[in-house]
């Protein structure tokens, strides 16, 4: 059979390793905190609004720790994997642990992402963990304390975590209703690293790097970000994320006029309220010629 020309790359979950250094500018001491926690294998909770760089930070740390561990020759050949699970309302424990699949002659067990990460070592990052069903907490708790155990109920197994394994969860305290708060028993198993949007001086270079815009545009976008974030509680639930600002920058790079780019990437993405859109648009027109 002729080899098919694949334009995509697919790999097993546990084989996904961050090889390239992701761009990340530390805002505070989060890198040291993460490293310290990792050395002690203390699970980490990342708190912060959407688009404030949580995922990028985890990627960055995964790369960085992978480098360190590699240097210390404490890594298997596969490297230091990063398993990311975006949690949603219908994510159940079996989605994380694994389940039986039906085959012609019976059933076959297949490991879930969490099980794979626990087996191979590396970071398992549960993004927006409050969204998941409550039964997932049963899994997280023994894994997140001194036991470092994963119970696979359906197999009747208990899995001891790989020495390199670390559980990282993220949580956005902003927009969920009171119902979707993280339980205290869960909360108190993690060290919490607080994230917020980077200050303007730092956000400018981030946008500059990520979007590839010139410095002035980048700092204008950062200024826009600062102004819009002043509106939290004034018709806006969330401030604009760095991600959106970067998108605006990317649109500008592609030749879209700055005002228009901000409109499509920032204003309309932020809110559906017409009045607020107009106000934010006035801020945009103040900043961009």
């Amino acid at each position, binding site marked *: 059979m002729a080899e098919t020309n694949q334009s995509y790359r697919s790999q097993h979950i546990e084989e996904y390793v961050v090889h390239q250094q992701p761009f990340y500018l530390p805002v505070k001491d989060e890198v040291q905190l993460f490293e310290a926690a990792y050395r002690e294998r203390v699970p980490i909770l990342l708190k912060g609004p959407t688009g404030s760089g949580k995922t990028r930070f985890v990627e960055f740390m995964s790369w960085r720790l992978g480098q360190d561990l590699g240097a210390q020759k404490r890594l298997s050949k596969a490297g230091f994997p990063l398993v990311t699970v975006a949690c949603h309302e219908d994510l159940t424990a*079996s989605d994380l642990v694994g389940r039986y699949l039906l085959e012609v002659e019976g059933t076959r067990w297949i490991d879930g992402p969490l099980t794979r990460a626990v087996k191979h070592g590396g970071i398992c990052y549960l993004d927006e963990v409050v969204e998941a069903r409550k039964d997932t907490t049963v899994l997280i708790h023994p894994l997140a304390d001194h036991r470092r155990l994963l119970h696979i109920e359906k197999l009747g197994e208990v899995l001891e975590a790989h020495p390199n394994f670390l559980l990282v969860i993220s949580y956005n305290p902003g927009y969920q209703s009171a119902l979707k708060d993280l339980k205290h028993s869960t909360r108190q198993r993690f060290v919490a690293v607080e994230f917020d949007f980077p200050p303007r001086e730092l956000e400018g270079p981030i946008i500059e790097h990520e979007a590839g815009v010139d410095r002035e545009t980048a700092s204008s976008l950062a200024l826009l970000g600062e102004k819009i974030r002043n509106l939290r509680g004034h018709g806006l639930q969330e401030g604009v994320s760095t991600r959106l600002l970067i998108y605006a920058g990317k649109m500008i790079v592609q030749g879209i006029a700055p*005002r228009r780019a901000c409109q499509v990437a920032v204003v309309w993405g932020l809110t559906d309220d017409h*009045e607020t859109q107009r*106000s934010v648009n006035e801020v945009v027109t*103040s900043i961009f010629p």
Partner: protein
Amino acid sequence: MNPQELEHVMTELQKYPSALTGAYETARIAVEGSLGPVNTVRWSEDGIRIARQTPRSWEVASEYYRASPRVLQAIGYPQFQRWVEAGIDLCGESPTVAASYFRASPAVLPHIQARQIATWANLGRSLSRGTWKSSSLASRFFETGTELYSTLSFREVELFVHLVESLSARSYDLAAECLHLGQRVLPTIDEREELISLANALVDNSWREVRGTFEAAARISASVERKLRPRYYALTERLARAGMQNVSSFILETTQSLGQLDAQYHPFALQHAEDLVEASAEAVGAFLKSAPAVLQRISLQQMEAWYGEGLKVLKENVDGGVAYFRVESSRAEAVLDQLSSTVEFEKVKPLLTVYANAMAGTEVELQGASAEMHRNHGWVAVESASTDGMHIYLPTIVDRHPTKDENFAWLKVVSTHQTGHLELGSFAFAYDRPSMLFEDLRPQVAAQRGEAVAGNTEMSHFFNMFPTRELASDIFSVVEDARIDFGLTNKYRGLRPDYLKVQANSLSARQDIRELPVRAAMVELLIRLSLHQLKEVPVPSRFVAEARAIAAHLRRVQHPDAIVEDAAEATIRIYAIISRLPNEQVPPEDWENQDFDEDTPQEEEATDQVLQQFQAGGEGPEDDGYESPEGVDYRGEFKPELVQMLGRMRGQGGAEEDQQQAMQEISQEMLEELLRESDMDIDDDMDVSAMANSMMKEVAANQQPKTKGQGYSDIEHQDEEGGSLEPVTPRSYVYHEWDFRANDYRPRWCIVQEKQALTGERKFFTDTLQTYSGLMEQIRRQFEAIRPEMYRKVKHLPEGEDIDFDAGLEAVTDIRNKRTPDERLYWRRNKAERDVGVVFLLDMSASTAEAVDEARKDGPDGDVPSDPVAYTMWLRTRRGDPSARRTYKRIIDVEKESMVLLMNALEMIGDRYGVYGFSGFGRENVEFYVIKELQEQLTDRVKRRLDKVAPLHATRMGPAIRHAASKLEKLDAKTKFLFVVSDGRPQDRGYSREGVEKEYAVQDTRMALLEARAKDITPFALTVDRNGHDYLRTMAGDMGYEVLPDIMDLPRRLPALYRRLTV
């Protein structure tokens, strides 16, 4: 006349009272000469003929004799005979009238032609119909003849009399009055025929209006241009003929508005009014009335477009068109707003508020710098922008440029300048903080001044350093404004073009610098430099070096890193220069133009020289009347001292200061002191202590938690009759109302007043539960059954928690049998979490006071009287005597009991619910009683409030529903319900337009329910009115409603309904 003939005549005359003989004797001597003997006999006998006609006609005869000499002088003989004959004919009909005729003749005849005498007499006769009143009318006519004929043409009088005659067929009194009025009014106007013709048009349809129309005629002359008056009359007449009823008020109102209109617009207004006649008479008045207000906002050309749009509406729907032309419809407002180049602050307030908050980075509120604000605060100048740190005051109307965009841009620049003060820290000035770009002279200056200069605020502390405070404050303002302007234009590149344009406009409007004395001129120079006039600035030749030094100091502040303390340092230096100069007028020839654009490095002035100006004791170089140059319009007012003081009072005075203490430590005395020492422009009508007092109040008010909600903020606003409303008191909200005939909203039509329901006894709640314990037990069981449904196991899913064993077996069997298995093998616990929010709206209208068993006798459907007196009576009869003890159960009691049961049940399943009551009287006062807020727990207090729910006034459902929906809207729940429990159709004063149809109220309520549905709220109407079917179908037909035939079913039905709807 021979003695024989005389003898005969005298004998005849002596049969009558001697007065007649006397009159005859006197007259005969006068007439004999001109008549000649034969005619004198005839003349004498004519008199006797008259006297013979009726018992009292001798009086007529004596009038005849008396008038004769003068009549004869006026008209000569042959005509004289015609006059006599006419009189004799008249006498045959009515002696009184004839007497008036003769009496009036001497005066009238000179004004009319001889051949018209008979017609004149006939005019009078036409009025007389043999009755006493008609005779007196006719007499009146003759008696007023002189006035009429001396100014009016014969034809005009004829027309007028015809009018009076036709009026007399309706009412003699009115005809007489009109005759009187006409005689007074007609001579004063030019358009007599037109007026009479108009009045004639009224006789058929609305004759009562004639008098008012005559009275209003003077107004027409006063306010309508002469050339156009006939057209105006013709227009009015057309309307009258088309059946318009209130013609006189039409005239009064339209002339008033035409009077407000510049005469050049009159042809336009009339032309368009005429075009409207065909479509709708009402629209004509509406259009003319609103024309001045509309033209104030848009130009004539734009008005054409506005009018065209209105005509379109009118053709589709007459009521809509009328509302449009009254500017009482949203569409009219919207079109007007679109056309108008004027920017009204109120319209852009929400937009700018969000903008300002984004820009400032601190919480700010926007307010119009209106006269109202000025009165209340004293320091807010009318129409000038300003900020007190928490509020930004902006001009209420911007009309400087021909387009809306330019006007808005101006306002945006103005607001940005104000937010700039907050963003770039103008008010964060700290006396001891070092500047970024200067060598700090403040400590040295303070040392130099020696005496204690500390002030109440950091800013006062700084200003106190200067011997001439006013000059220092002016310089600081300009320098700081220049710093802000620079910072903003540097940071906000998008706003920059607009900003520069505003600055350029501002510059071009400035006074001639050469008229100012030197010191003011130097400050003016500073202003001009700050507005970028860098070329050819006039400078006194003697002080070029000083001017250059000033410019250099200013330029240092125009730097991205400059902070407010830099502005302060620059102020010290510039002050030192300017205060050295003599404040004298410079002759025009001693000025020269200087360019300041090249950046000449300026060496720092020797510190000694600066300090010299701050010599202790040197109380300013002789205070020679320095006066500030006028301010820069877009920059508004800058009051750093005041803002710092207010900030301190509000407890923003820095972290080290305890807030409570901060508030207490500032007394009114301190404020007054500050106000006195700072040179703020305080109004004459506002003394310092009053102002300080108002500031104290203002700050205190701001300290209290605010109630904010949907609707509009609490701006103070006077209610205009029939117009939109503004909520004035806290917890009041304004809502639109739907006018189904206009097919449009009436903007801001109703005010909902939210009130806390009174608290009564808890006994009611517990008693009810006791009474209905059996029913409650049933309800409880039913409601408890809701719970388990929350966690249902759902099977046959393509993915899920685990394989469903049964389905798996089946699939395996299928595979074995070579059949395609069903792929839906999984099951999952479906967390159908109950997330319900519900609001109950209880009708608290007066009709709920009816006893339940009688509820059906007189349907709760009666019209609410619109007259307040009648209304009170109506209320009283409905409520019954309050003092009498109530033994029967009222509708509202059943409503309340049902609520108790339902609330108890709701507590079991944990749904969030709010209970509110509504009533009110009129659109300005829709009462909304809070029994239980959505967020509130079922506390004892809530239970006690329920006790006090009692029948009140009318039922204006629309606004209450809108308000309830706005509460629900804010609730985060998956499913939301709005239950309206009422006992009848919606009704209120004026809630049916013109008070005729109930349709208006029903349609508005329907629209309110539809609006709720658009907010993802499921509305449901429940009524106990048995006639409810007919209007509920219109009101809530496609949404959900139920009519309860028996009110006593309510306690059972309400919970059941709720369960059915929400599960």
